[in-house]
C-alpha cells in the first residue's frame, strides 16, 4: 500500500487568529514495503506529517492517497475505520495508553473495536504477545505489573493485533535502556522482513536511521527539505549541522578521520563498514 502526499498543506486552527503552519507544500511517496525514517528537530512538522498517514489530520489543501483512500479537506470521518486498521500508529511512550485489567484484554481491545469476535481477538492477543517477544505468562497479568520496556511491547502488540500493513512509530525507543532499545529495533526489523510491514519511523537517533531506513525524509519548519537514502543524506555533514541535525556516530568518526587524512569511498554508515575501509589504511593493525 503506497502512501502519496500531493502538495499537502496543513494549517493549525485555520481561520482563527491562532492559525499556524503545520505543513507547507509536502509532496512525497512512501512506497509499499519500504522503511522510511522522518527526521527533523523538535517542532519541524514530523508529528503533523505522521498524523496525516491515517487521516487523524486532514490536509487543509492537497491530497494524501493511502492505498485506495483519497484524503482531502472534504473527506468525512465516516468510513475511515478500514484505513485506521491498515495504518497502525505507535505513539511516543505508547505504554501510557494501556488501561485493561490483563495484557490479553488490552491487546484484544483494538481488534474487537474493528468487529473481531471476543474469542478471535484473544487468540490474536496470544499470537501478538509472541510476536513482540514476550512470554505467554504475561497474558493474564496486569499490564501495570510489567517493566516499562515490557509495557511498551504490550502496547505495540495491541497495534499489531489490528494486523496493519503500515506501522508508524513515533520515537519508539525513547526512555528505554540500550539493551531494550536494541531489542525493540531488532523486533521492528524482523516484522519488516518477515511480515512485509511498511515502516515509518520518526526518530532523533541518526544511528537507527543509518542502520535501518532505506528512505529518509528531512523536515524543517513544516517543509520537506530533503529526501534520499541515508547515504545521500549523511554525505553532507555541514548541511545537517546547519539544520540542527546530527550525524550517525560512524559518520562523525569518519569525518574526524578524514580531517586527519584518511580516505573513505563511499562514506561508511555502519561500524563494520568503517572498520573494513580502515583496515587496509592501517596496515591491518599493529601488533602489541
Amino acid at each position, binding site marked *: 500500500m503506497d502512501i502519496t502526499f500531493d502538495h499537502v498543506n496543513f494549517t493549525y486552527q485555520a481561520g482563527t487568529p491562532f492559525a499556524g503552519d503545520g505543513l507547507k507544500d509536502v509532496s512525497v511517496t512512501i512506497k509499499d514495503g519500504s522503511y522510511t525514517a522522518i527526521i527533523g528537530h523538535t517542532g519541524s512538522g514530523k508529528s503533523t506529517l505522521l498524523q496525516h498517514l491515517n487521516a487523524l489530520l486532514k490536509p487543509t489543501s492537497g491530497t494524501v492517497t493511502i492505498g485506495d483512500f483519497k484524503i482531502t479537506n472534504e473527506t468525512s470521518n465516516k468510513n475511515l475505520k478500514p484505513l485506521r486498521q491498515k495504518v497502525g500508529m505507535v505513539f511516543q511512550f505508547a505504554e501510557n495508553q494501556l488501561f485493561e485489567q490483563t495484557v490479553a484484554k488490552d491487546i484484544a481491545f483494538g481488534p474487537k473495536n474493528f468487529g473481531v469476535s471476543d474469542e478471535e481477538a484473544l487468540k490474536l492477543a496470544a499470537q501478538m504477545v509472541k510476536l513482540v517477544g514476550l512470554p505467554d505468562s504475561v497474558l493474564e497479568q496486569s499490564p501495570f505489573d510489567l517493566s516499562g520496556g515490557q509495557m511498551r511491547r504490550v502496547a505495540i502488540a495491541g497495534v499489531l493485533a489490528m494486523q496493519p500493513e503500515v506501522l508508524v512509530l513515533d520515537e519508539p525507543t525513547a526512555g528505554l535502556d540500550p539493551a*531494550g532499545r536494541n531489542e525493540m529495533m531488532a523486533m521492528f526489523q524482523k516484522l519488516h522482513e518477515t511480515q512485509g510491514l511498511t515502516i515509518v519511523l520518526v526518530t532523533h537517533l541518526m544511528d537507527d536511521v543509518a542502520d535501518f531506513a532505506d528512505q529518509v525524509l528531512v523536515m524543517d519548519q513544516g517543509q520537506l527539505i530533503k529526501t534520499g537514502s541515508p547515504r545521500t543524506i549523511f554525505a553532507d555533514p555541514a548541511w545537517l549541522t546547519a539544520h540542527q541535525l546530527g550525524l550517525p556516530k560512524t559518520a562523525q568518526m569518519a569525518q574526524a578521520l578524514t580531517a586527519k587524512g584518511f580516505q573513505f569511498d563511499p562514506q561508511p554508515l555502519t561500524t563494520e563498514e568503517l572498520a573494513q575501509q580502515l583496515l587496509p589504511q592501517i596496515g591491518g593493525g599493529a601488533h602489541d
Partner: protein
Amino acid sequence: MALIDIEHLNFAYPDQTKPALRDVSLQVNAGEWVAIIGHNGSGKSTLAKNINGLLAPASGQVTVAGLPLTEANVWAIREKVGIVFQNPDNQFVGATVQDDVAFGLENRAVPRSEMVTRVHDALAQVNMLDFATREPARLSGGQKQRVAIAGIIAQRPEIIILDEATSMLDPAGRAEVLALIQQLRAQTNMTVLSITHDVDEAASADRVVLLNDGEIVESGTPAEIFTHGEELLALGLDVPYPERLKAALRRAGATMPKDYLDEEGLVNYLWTLHSTM
C-alpha cells in the same frame, strides 16, 4: 569523611523474593561527580531512593553529610539532597516557571524576599530567566529539565541526584542538560550523583559505578570502566563509540590496544598506524 557514605546496604521490595540491592557499599566525596550505570532493573533508582529516605533499607547504614539516615534525620537529609527525575512532565506543580521553582521554598517557609532572590538566581543559573512567567507545559524537554534543576538548586542542596534525568530528552536537550551540570559544578562545586544509561553522561563523570542485579560489580574512572567494553555490552549497556569501532576492527582482524581511548585518542592512534605503514 565522605559526603555520602553507604555501608552494606540491603533492600528488598515487598512481595519480591529477590533483593533489589545486595550489600552495596559506596562513598561519594564532596564535589565529586559519580555516575551509576546499569541496565533497567539493576537497582540504580532504588539506590538513589535509599539515599534520601524515600525507601528505607532492610539493613545497612546510609550517612549523608555526617547525619545517619534515621526517621529523626530524614528531613534534614532531604534538605541536603535534591533529586531530578526522569519524566519532566511528572514533576511540575506551578502554573508558571517561577512558581514552580518557588514551590519547594514555599514548603520550607522561606521568607518571600529571600524566595524572590533565590528563584531569580536559580533561573539565571540554568539560563531560563527569560521564561520565568511562561507555562512549564509549553517548554521543550531540555528546558523543562533545566527548570526542574532550578527548583532543586534554589533550595541549595549539597547533593543533586539525576535519576535518568536526560533519558527522555532528544539529543539537543540531553546536551543542554549535561552542559548545565558541568557549568554548575564549575561554579558551585556541587556533588552530583547521576543515574544513567547514557554513555556520554557517564563519560563526563569523575567516577563510574557499575550496578548489576543489585550489586556493585565495578567502580572506577570512566576510562577504567570503558576498557571493559565487551562485558558492558554483555550486561546490556552501551559503550562509547571508539570502543565499538575498536571491537569491529578486532573482528575484522586488526589488533587494537586494550586501553580506553576517546574519539580524539583513537583517531590519533589510527593515524600513527597509517603513518608507519
